[in-house]
């Protein structure tokens, strides 16, 4: 969580009224200081108003605004969280089939004294890093590396913690050539066979099959401003509305927010974010994540491997809405 203190904040459109207010407050303060006038009472009121405004803005975000928060360039990534929550950790590389995908990372770690396997999609921290990490869009080799690490966890009886943060699985010629569909499909099935607890957390964007490929677990957690979609709103808009400009309408219709998915009984728990989003206070956010993971792990601990697998199956078995008539 080494967010440099003096880095200029990256503002989202809807944060602008807040930024303006904050700038005005500091201008007034400066003016008062120059002229030796005491405005502390007024400043105090204005600051309270700024806090209130921030809360108002972040409590009423539209789905497409939430996507902006979920995709915020400063939003903590998988690597940030792993480093922040684990006592120690060692990254492991490679799918043992010829690839090491930098867009999906993982390794062995110790969480509160306990060995675990952690893995997740990795977005870059800046443009150069993002290009190297393919913007968190994993290739077949990434999903196979994830599977290999999950089998390792199964072998050594370690719980698995996965972190989802991808716009989607990589759609390129090589991804098809090396079996993107097969790699994801294999994980979906194999994750039902693992004897250890699996907790998946959507930390940013959950993009379709690319997210689900490491998302089959006993628990699904999601940060408050994370999104999880069947198709990106942009793609959905261009297919169903025949107009990519209708992305915000699609985002609304697709029901992609944590609150929506809790209602649809797909999600188990919403992890709150600090006001202003995870990037506003990464350290606090990591603490919330760690607490949530440990609590869910202790819920799962009493279960035998057979019970874990059965509950995991039943959890997914229930998902779906349809009508069935007797005739």
């Amino acid at each position: 969580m080494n967010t440099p203190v003096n880095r200029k904040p990256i503002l989202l459109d809807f944060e602008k009224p807040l930024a303006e207010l904050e700038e005005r407050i500091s201008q007034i303060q400066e003016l008062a200081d120059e002229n030796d006038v005491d405005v502390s009472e007024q400043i105090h009121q204005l600051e309270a108003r700024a806090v209130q405004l921030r809360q108002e803005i972040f409590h009423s975000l539209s789905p497409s605004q939430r996507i902006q928060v979920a995709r915020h360039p400063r939003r903590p990534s998988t690597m940030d969280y792993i480093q922040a929550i684990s006592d120690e950790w060692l990254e492991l590389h490679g799918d043992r089939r010829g690839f090491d995908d930098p867009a999906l990372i993982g390794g062995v770690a110790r969480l509160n004294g306990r060995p675990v396997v952690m893995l997740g999609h990795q977005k870059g921290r800046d443009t150069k890093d993002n290009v190297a990490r393919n913007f968190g869009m994993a290739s077949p080799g990434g999903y196979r590396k994830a599977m290999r690490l999950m089998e390792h966890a199964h072998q050594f009886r370690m719980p698995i913690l996965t972190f989802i943060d991808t716009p989607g699985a990589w759609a390129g010629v090589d991804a098809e050539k090396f079996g993107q569909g097969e790699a994801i499909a294999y994980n979906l099935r194999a994750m039902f066979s693992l004897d250890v607890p699996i907790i998946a957390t959507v930390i940013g964007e959950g993009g379709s099959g690319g997210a689900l490929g490491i998302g089959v677990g006993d628990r699904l957690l999601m940060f408050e401003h994370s999104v999880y979609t069947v198709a990106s709103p942009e793609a959905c808009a261009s297919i169903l509305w025949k107009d990519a400009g209708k992305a915000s309408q699609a985002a609304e219709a697709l029901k992609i927010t944590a609150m929506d998915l809790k209602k649809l009984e797909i999600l188990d728990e919403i992890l709150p974010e600090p006001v202003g989003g995870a990037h506003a206070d990464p350290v606090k956010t990591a603490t919330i994540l760690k607490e949530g993971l440990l609590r869910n792990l202790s819920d799962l601990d009493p279960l035998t491997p057979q019970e874990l697998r059965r509950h995991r199956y039943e959890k997914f078995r229930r998902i779906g809405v349809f009508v069935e008539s007797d005739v």
Partner: protein
Amino acid sequence: MSLFDWFDNRRKPGSPNRESREREIADGLWTKCPACGVMIYTKDLRANAKVCPECNHHIPVYTQERIQQLIDLDTWLPINQTLRPTDPLGFRDRKPYRDRLREIQEKTGLADAVQTGVGEMEGLAAALGIMDFRFMGGSMGSVVGEKLTRLIEHATQNQLPVIIICASGGARMQEGMLSLMQMAKISGALEQHRQSHLLYIPVLTHPTTGGVTASFAMLGDIILAEPKCTIGFAGKRVIEQTLREKLPDGFQSAEYLLSHGFVDAIVSRPQLKATLAQLIRLHSPQPTAP
């Protein structure tokens, strides 16, 4: 006129006895192959499982024809026929999802995009799921997921092999994340079927893409495909847009997947039933010697 010319003329719509032939087309006696343009006597075409005898083009076939082609006469028993889709998200794009469903149900006579049941193939019992591309592009929503899951569970309980004829554009966006989760649900059911050492064969037909490819289509113990069908994870247009380059010839075809090791065999439709029956026989437990 050489023999070749005669063949050529035969294929051209403007050949001499055009008028009488067009009357026959109107009656449905003749069918024109959409790939090579040759006129085929419809009865012959049907007897050949709707595969053009000239160019081997596989004309799309749908649920009822598939059942006739694959299942022994009078052995088909459909299951879970009363499941119907609803509109859990209140989804509306340019048209409400509810209206889209009603229209396509009226047009196709189907409740949703998959039919499931049990039947015999050359006397061998099997659980069969058939996706129908006419129903919203064979897209997978809650009903498709539930029906396939129940089919697989039924097969696990009754020790049956599962065969799924895949044809789908992927997850049904109008049901949002509920659709995506069907990929996991079906895969979970397949894991249980697999734990029971039972055989699962998906048959990939045109087109098999998206979430279906990234789940049950690629999870077969043995994976068969119809010639030249499109099989892929991402749509070709998506890939072209991301890469801004033209795609290699034959990319995402059954033959491409075969040469890259993701399909076991390409089987022409007239041989499909015999091939499936052969595979089921090869994987049946041997009677133990007395």
